[in-house]
């Protein structure tokens, strides 16, 4: 009993930390992706007056008065978010709302409809009211749909939007990440094999060298790669000097630059897990297999490599997971067509101030990502059962 309490106490800080930094933010992100309270917070009376409204029918008469009262109630400083939210439903709504808000007098409550239409004729048309109705909240699927390039039409049906923005980005993001994983695997496996064959005192300094990219700032790394890979950079000058090519190759501000820069920093994540697993493989197994008549290649393929699968799986998952989230490096060393999902999350969150869309992009990304990781895990499970037997 005492041991259980002791264990629980030791684990408690980590559990608390993971909950606060992982579970809670994810939960908040899910909530934010469906939250739609910007308009509801400043137009409560108007939304109540529009209760049960069918946008095909005329505007309820009480709505105008409710709007004027809402305008009078909240100060202009709180209207930014609501105006922007409405603008997403109806382009032009932002300036319409903010302009009317400033010029409208509370005394116009006597005939709110005429007063509003006198400010701007659009208040008499259903457009802005439909926008308020669509943005009434408190929750909506609109942002999640937008993150999948879908939208709910007037009739309520879900259809693809005209501009396919994000689907191609998901394909591109995970495509780049998988490519980088594959390159890191091809480059990292031989390195891990070599390091595992060295005694620890020789391997550790080499491992430290391998981890050097992790100790530099991401911006410094990106700038260094630009300097090396640009048209008159060191790499191109070397290639031309060695007569491998006569014209400089475009190695940066395109996909090549992105792959090079990402592999550079993610390679240690592939090598270290594989190295750790390889280190504990008993050497006498390999010698035994050789003495039973297996060639070096067969020993490697059928005795050595299967036991490394856990390490390979860990390395691949680490590289894939890290790589999927990269966006600063691709933004700096890549071209316009190499931007990954993170760029769009940043654009939505910071530039467009559309936190809900940013959260929705994150939710869709997480679902796709977890599916891919789950598939990788499931694919490797049977292998692990096989290696269990081998070790016993």
């Amino acid at each position, binding site marked *: 009993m005492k041991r259980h309490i002791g264990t629980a106490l030791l684990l408690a800080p980590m559990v608390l930390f993971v909950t606060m930094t992982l579970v809670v933010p994810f939960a908040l992100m899910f909530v934010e992706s469906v939250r739609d309270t910007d308009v509801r917070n400043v137009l409560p009376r108007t939304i109540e007056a529009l209760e049960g409204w069918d946008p095909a029918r005329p505007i309820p008469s009480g709505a105008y008065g409710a709007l004027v009262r809402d305008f009078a109630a909240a*100060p*202009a*400083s*709180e*209207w*930014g*978010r609501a*105006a*922007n939210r409405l*603008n997403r439903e109806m*382009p*032009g709504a*932002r*300036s319409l709302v*903010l302009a009317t808000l400033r010029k409208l007098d509370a005394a116009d409550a006597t005939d709110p409809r005429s007063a509003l239409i006198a400010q701007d004729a659009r208040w008499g048309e259903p457009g802005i009211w439909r926008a308020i109705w669509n943005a009434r909240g408190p929750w909506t699927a609109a942002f999640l749909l937008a993150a999948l390039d879908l939208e709910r039409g007037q009739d309520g049906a879900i259809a693809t939007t005209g*501009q396919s*923005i994000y689907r*191609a*980005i998901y394909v591109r993001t995970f495509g780049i990440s998988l490519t980088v994983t594959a390159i890191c695997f091809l480059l990292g496996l031989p390195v891990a094999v070599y390091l595992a064959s060295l005694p620890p005192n020789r391997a550790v300094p080499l491992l430290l060298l391998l981890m050097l990219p992790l100790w530099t700032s991401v911006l410094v790394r990106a700038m260094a790669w630009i300097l090396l890979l*640009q*048209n*008159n950079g060191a790499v191109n000058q070397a290639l031309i000097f060695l007569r491998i090519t006569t014209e400089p190759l475009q190695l940066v*501000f395109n996909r090549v630059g992105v792959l090079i820069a990402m592999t550079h920093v993610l390679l240690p994540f592939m090598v270290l897990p594989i190295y750790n697993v390889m280190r504990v493989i008993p050497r006498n197994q390999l010698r035994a297999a050789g003495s039973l008549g297996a060639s070096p290649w067969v020993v490697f393929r059928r005795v050595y490599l299967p036991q490394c699968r856990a390490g390979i799986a860990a390395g691949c998952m680490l590289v894939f997971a890290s790589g999927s989230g990269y966006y600063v490096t691709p933004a700096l060393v890549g*071209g*316009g*067509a190499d*931007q990954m999902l993170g*760029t*769009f999350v940043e*654009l939505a*969150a*910071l*530039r*467009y*101030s559309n936190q809900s869309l940013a959260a929705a992009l994150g939710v869709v990304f997480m679902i796709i990502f977890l599916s891919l990781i789950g598939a990788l895990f499931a694919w490797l499970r049977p292998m692990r059962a096989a290696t269990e037997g081998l070790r016993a």
Partner: protein
Amino acid sequence: MKARLIIAALSATVALQGPAFARDLTVIGWGGAPQDAQREAYFVPFAAETGIKVIDDSWTGGVGVLRTRVEAGGDPGWDVVEAEAEEVLVGCAEGIYEPIDWSKISEKDNLIPAAISECGVGTITWSTGFAYDQDKLGTGPITVADFFDLERFPGKRAIRKGPKYILELALMADGVPANQVYDVLRTPEGVNRAFNKLETIKSDLLYFESGAQSIQLLASGEATMVLTFNARITAANETDNRNFKFIWPGSIYAVDSWVILRNSPNKEAALKFIDFASRAKPQEIHSRLVAYGPTNTAAIEALPEDVAKDLPTYGPNMEGAIALDAGFWADNIQALTERFNFFAAH
């Protein structure tokens, strides 16, 4: 005994954090050579005169960035920001800036009209346009239309990652007279026309975020022609002995203003700083260091010919140039930014 020592050390650490919570006045510029000039002309002399410490940092624009800071609630982290013309308008309408208390700005009567607005105090007149390396492309004359001519001038083109300025320049390159650019741009056909023009050079487009990157791309030869800002070209020519040329006809000039973010804890210090930066002498020093025009008329008059000739406000430089239509961008920056990012990413 040991436990008491540890507790005492921890308490001391906590107590020492106290003064650190009060934030110094934070002024945000656009980085690079222009900000170095601001530091020398404004930040350091202001701190020396008033004893108020100034921390300066840089940003790359976008009212959404400021919106996010203010709407997050509490201290926005930044106090005074140098904002572009339509960023001032949009943010003011949304209430994310503190209205300027003009009674505290002593030089109000000496400022040019474009520098006076509800939420902003104008600080510089600056120009955006195309530039190229004369050592590589010759002495020209090269026009705005040549930016889109990949046959006569092959090579990459670098532009800012945003729709402002490039859409106007694309229309001008497509033959729209300068004084009709914004009328055309207000129509959906006009916007499509501008994007179609950009589409013709899309495969050779590079994007940069900061002004300094535009100069770097031009200097390294990575880009043959770039969209950039006049003072950066002047600075590169003076400090790095470059032979860059800024294309003045067709360039677009605008006024940047200091704004104060709402809920800033350093409002009084911010107003004092803006007042200092609006005086004639600091502005004169600033314009000698970086080729942006002052907003204080006394400073404009005090500048000699050899300095004035690089400024956007100089007569010959204004021929063929147009003023930025801040109202147009205030209405359309959001939608056109989204469309531009979609264009860039696909």
